């Protein structure tokens, strides 16, 4: 990635799109400290996060999910939830919060099941609510819709809007254009590690450069 | 190469420079470094001896690197296979009266079959499993071999008196005949294996599988057969190494652990799965060991520390080794 700059609006849902291999996940990795940038800055709440360790960034209120889910496979659903640190609350409270969250995505009856035995869609949901354990301010979702069935997806999107109403900032990477166009207020488009366009959905849909990036240059 | 990799290489070079300077510093401190003609002769002798010894190390380390390259299994029983080779040679020498080099004709096929059996019974089940499973299984195999040999031969140290004379290069520089013979044999065998991998059809299949097992399978390579041959070949290399070690040093059932760690150190230094790397690593380790044993008091015990230290530090500084690239 080179010469690529974003300003994500606070308290809004933004979308990050681009063809395969354009650098979307890499962007998330840079934001959350999984990759260390060679240069440049990540400003969050007026603070530069570049060079911090992933756990430090997490504790500043930035959380994420992964494109291919990374739940803890040989731990139960409840243990997955309780593994999150930085809550600063007694175990009983943490447990209650975990129960609420897993009930919310209809996983309550599976609380003692191993994470690895859940279906892929259920794993996505578990990862989503696990990221919410600490009440984060900035939530980065890497393809939340992939492999989740329609009803659950609607449920998840509703919850996303509710979080936004609470003042959270959300960024999603997604290939499902319905999700992006109907739920994001601002969209960033990347190609080959560079931002090629940004704007509200209606504008992006008409943008020549975006169409080019996805479908190739028109003759 | 990425920037962090270049940095790792510099760090490694700096570390190696320190490692090689260490025996000299300790030697100067304790007064074993004298800078007269005799001492310089000794120095040249141990460096040349180290290179000779390194050829043998490199040869058996190649066996370890082959298995790792093809199957991603770390064979913790490799040193025990070397030890087994030493005992096979000893039996041939004392009971059958066969010359240790001629004995290779008998021992290598046995070793190859042993490797094939190990592959069939144990390793086939763990190819593709987490690396730790293979490590544990081969570790268990190694222990079994140690104690089986101990049961038969006891823990006594054995030696094979073979070509005890020395080759005199100058007045002060002399190298043991057995070392020279071992070195020549190691070079011959290593070259043979290298040519096999480069030119032979099966050898090419081994290299293709090491690059990408799935693609190799799609291209019609019988991967199972490649695995069998690889482990057989690795076991043969280890046993050949054992034969060449046995005519230079004493051994007992537990020396296998040292050979395992030396082979690890070598392939970690050179780069895992890298043929040429194993050669460089072998020479470097053996020279360092010899420098330590010349200059550091209590040197023979400290030699082991050289291998462990080298291994741990290289793992930490540049996990990919000299020739390898960083692994994900």
């Amino acid at each position, binding site marked *: 990635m080179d010469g690529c700059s974003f300003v994500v609006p606070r308290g809004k849902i933004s979308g990050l799109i681009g063809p395969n291999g354009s650098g979307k996940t890499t962007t998330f990795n840079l934001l959350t400290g999984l990759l260390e940038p060679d240069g440049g800055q990540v400003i969050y709440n007026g603070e530069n996060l570049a060079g911090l360790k992933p*756990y430090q960034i997490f504790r500043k209120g930035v959380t994420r999910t992964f494109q291919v889910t990374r739940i803890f496979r040989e731990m139960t659903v409840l243990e997955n939830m309780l*593994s999150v*640190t930085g809550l600063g609350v007694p175990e009983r409270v943490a447990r209650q919060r975990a129960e609420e969250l897993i009930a919310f995505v209809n996983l309550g009856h599976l609380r003692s099941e191993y994470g690895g035995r859940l279906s892929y869609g259920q794993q996505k949901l578990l990862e989503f609510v696990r990221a919410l354990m*600490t009440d984060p301010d900035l939530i980065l979702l890497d393809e939340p819709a992939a492999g989740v069935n329609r009803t659950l997806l609607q449920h998840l999107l509703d919850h996303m809007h509710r979080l936004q109403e609470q003042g959270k900032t959300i960024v999603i990477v997604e290939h499902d254009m319905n999700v992006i166009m109907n739920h994001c207020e601002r969209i960033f488009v990347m190609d080959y590690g560079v931002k090629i366009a940004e704007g509200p959905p209606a504008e992006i849909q008409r943008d020549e450069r975006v169409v080019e990036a996805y479908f190739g240059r028109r003759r | 190469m990425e920037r962090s990799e270049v940095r790792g290489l510099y760090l490694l070079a700096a570390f190696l420079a320190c490692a090689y300077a260490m025996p000299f510093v300790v030697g100067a401190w304790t007064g074993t470094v004298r800078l007269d003609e005799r001492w310089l002769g000794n120095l040249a002798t141990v460096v040349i001896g180290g290179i000779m010894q390194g050829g043998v190390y490199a040869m058996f380390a190649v066996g370890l690197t082959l298995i790792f390259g093809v199957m991603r299994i770390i064979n913790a029983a490799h040193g025990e296979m070397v030890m087994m080779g030493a005992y096979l040679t000893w039996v041939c020498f004392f009971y059958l009266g066969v010359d240790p080099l001629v004995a290779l004709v008998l021992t290598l096929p046995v070793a190859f079959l042993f490797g094939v059996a190990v592959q069939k019974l144990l390793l086939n089940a763990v190819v593709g499993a987490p690396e730790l499973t293979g490590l544990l299984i081969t570790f268990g195999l190694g222990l079994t071999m140690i104690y089986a040999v101990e049961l038969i031969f006891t823990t006594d140290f054995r030696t094979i008196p073979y070509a005890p004379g020395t080759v005199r290069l100058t007045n002060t520089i002399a190298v043991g005949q057995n070392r020279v013979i071992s070195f020549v044999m190691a070079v011959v065998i290593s070259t043979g294996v290298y040519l096999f991998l480069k030119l032979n059809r099966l050898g090419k299949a081994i290299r293709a599988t090491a690059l990408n097992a799935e693609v190799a399978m799609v291209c019609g390579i019988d991967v199972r057969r490649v695995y069998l041959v690889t482990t057989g070949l690795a076991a043969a290399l280890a046993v050949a190494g054992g034969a060449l070690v046995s005519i230079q040093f004493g051994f007992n059932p537990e020396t296998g652990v040292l050979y395992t760690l030396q082979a690890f150190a070598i392939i970690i230094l050179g780069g895992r799965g890298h043929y040429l790397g194993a050669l460089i690593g072998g020479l470097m380790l053996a020279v360092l060991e010899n420098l330590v044993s010349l200059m550091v008091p209590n040197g023979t015990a400290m030699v082991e520390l050289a291998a462990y230290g080298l291994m*741990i530090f290289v793992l930490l500084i540049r996990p990919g080794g000299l020739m390898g690239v960083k692994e994900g």
Partner: protein
Amino acid sequence: MTRGEHLRNLVLLGACAVALTILPHALTVYRRSFVLFTMMYVVLALSWNIISGFTGYTSFGHVAFYGIGAYACAILVADYRWHWIPTLGVGAVLAALIAVVIGYPVLRLKGPYFAIAMLGAAEGTRVVATVWDSLTHGGLGISLPSAETSLETYYAMVTLMLVTIVVAYGVGHSRFGIRLNAIREDEVAAEALGINATLYKLAAFTLSAVFPAVAGGIQAYKVLYIDPPAVFFVQITIAMALMSMLGGKGTVIGPIVGAVILYTAQELTWVNFPTAHLIAYGLFIVLVARFMPRGLVGLAIDRGWVRKGMIH
């Protein structure tokens, strides 16, 4: 796990403690020392399990800490005329310090490379103990002044074992333990969820080094003679690993069960076939790793005999 279950386990442990306290008076000297060594292996297996079972960093070199504890006790008692009890504390502190020094760099290695590096570190410790003869008497070993120690060491080992079980149980049922599990499952994801993996791993490693050091000290005072090959014996590490794996690593009850079964089996075969039992050891590792990677407890859970968490 519910509060009732914790209480039940506590009562069980208390009953064990009482039984073990009364027991030695009903036993011959040989049987008493058999029970002592069984308890020692329970301690070793449980400790190894904290770093290798809970955290997933398989150590092939834990015998180093056992040896350090044994040497701390032997040197201080034989050369400096200390009472033996405080030497156990010295051994524990020393082992913890060395664990931090070794662990900080080596815990950055993953999977098999950590295992190999630890194997090298333990062999290195043995070489140091052999070479540094002004302190350790080198290969000659150290003889401790003899004393009537059979009951003292027995009760020391009972205490150590109870403490180790309580600590391991506490770790296994706390959020600390859950986070160690998270590191084992996926270290990157764990870091992305706010877990300072470096710190947690180091804490687990240090904790797992302390108890073997104390056990080593008690053992030294029990047998009254130590030398490097005996207390830095690779097979002790292997026993820790094998016992945990057999019972079920990553659980609390697993290593206890594994240690009791395996040490008993070892003692029975040892009496009859001195070398064969070591061969059996190697074969056993192969078989357990090949066919029962989750151990007896894992087997029981998979078969639905017990609920997960019930005996965990």
